[in-house]
């Protein structure tokens, strides 16, 4: 359980190892890395701004609500801010559960909510010196909504 929002890199392999060491039947992990190609072409640097305090609060609420909905045994969210290079990990989400469907769903639920609800904003810097704020994707909002549809 828990949220870490940090400027420093983290060791995703070590984090995975910690989850797997729980011995819980199902472990699901997702990590997102900086793309080397953005809206204006090659990206030399991605800058992540966030809203300190609100970020931790929102991520904790997302984790708790995934945990309650899917009966997770544990969960962890790590998110970086500050300048990031292509290929570096931005976000790491890991959950454990009694069953694989709960682990997959819990992990994806966290990612889908984090994308649209956690106060982070990305700015791409390009080799030619141009910079561009990344626009929110409609598809991300759609993916979040599908967790809240009656069906």
């Amino acid at each position, binding site marked *: 359980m828990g949220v870490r929002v940090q400027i420093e890199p983290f060791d995703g392999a070590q984090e995975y190892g910690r989850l797997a060491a729980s011995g819980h039947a199902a472990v699901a992990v997702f990590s*997102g890395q900086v793309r080397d190609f953005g809206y204006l072409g090659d990206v030399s640097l991605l800058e*992540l*701004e*966030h*809203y300190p*305090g*609100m970020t931790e*609060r*929102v991520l904790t609420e997302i984790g708790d609500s995934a945990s309650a909905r899917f009966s997770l045994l544990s969960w962890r969210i790590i*998110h970086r801010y500050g300048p990031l290079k292509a290929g570096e990990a*931005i*976000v790491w989400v890991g959950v454990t559960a009694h069953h694989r469907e709960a682990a997959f769903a819990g992990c994806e639920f966290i*990612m889908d909510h*984090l*994308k*649209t*609800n*956690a*106060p*982070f*904003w*990305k*700015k791409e810097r390009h080799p030619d010196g141009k910079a561009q*704020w*990344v*626009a*929110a*994707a409609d598809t991300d909002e759609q993916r979040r909504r599908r967790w809240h549809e009656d069906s």
Partner: protein
Amino acid sequence: MLSVRFFSLLREALNTEVLELEWSSRCCTVGALKQELIKQNGSFWEEHLMHPNVIHAVNQRVVMIEEPLHDGDEIAFFPPMTGG
């Protein structure tokens, strides 16, 4: 006192990170605060603050424009989030 924060392209465009405002009982909702800020700062602020995508948070929770404000609140304006 109200503390008003701006993030991402709003922070850049308005060249403002934080505003500390005297509490005024006239200013009783997020929408009214927006109108107050526009009155004080003109059409460039209006263009940005009235953009339909702008998100409002009060005390670090996303709220609707009708949200009432209280002395000591922290209000934030920002564009849609792009984490992950």
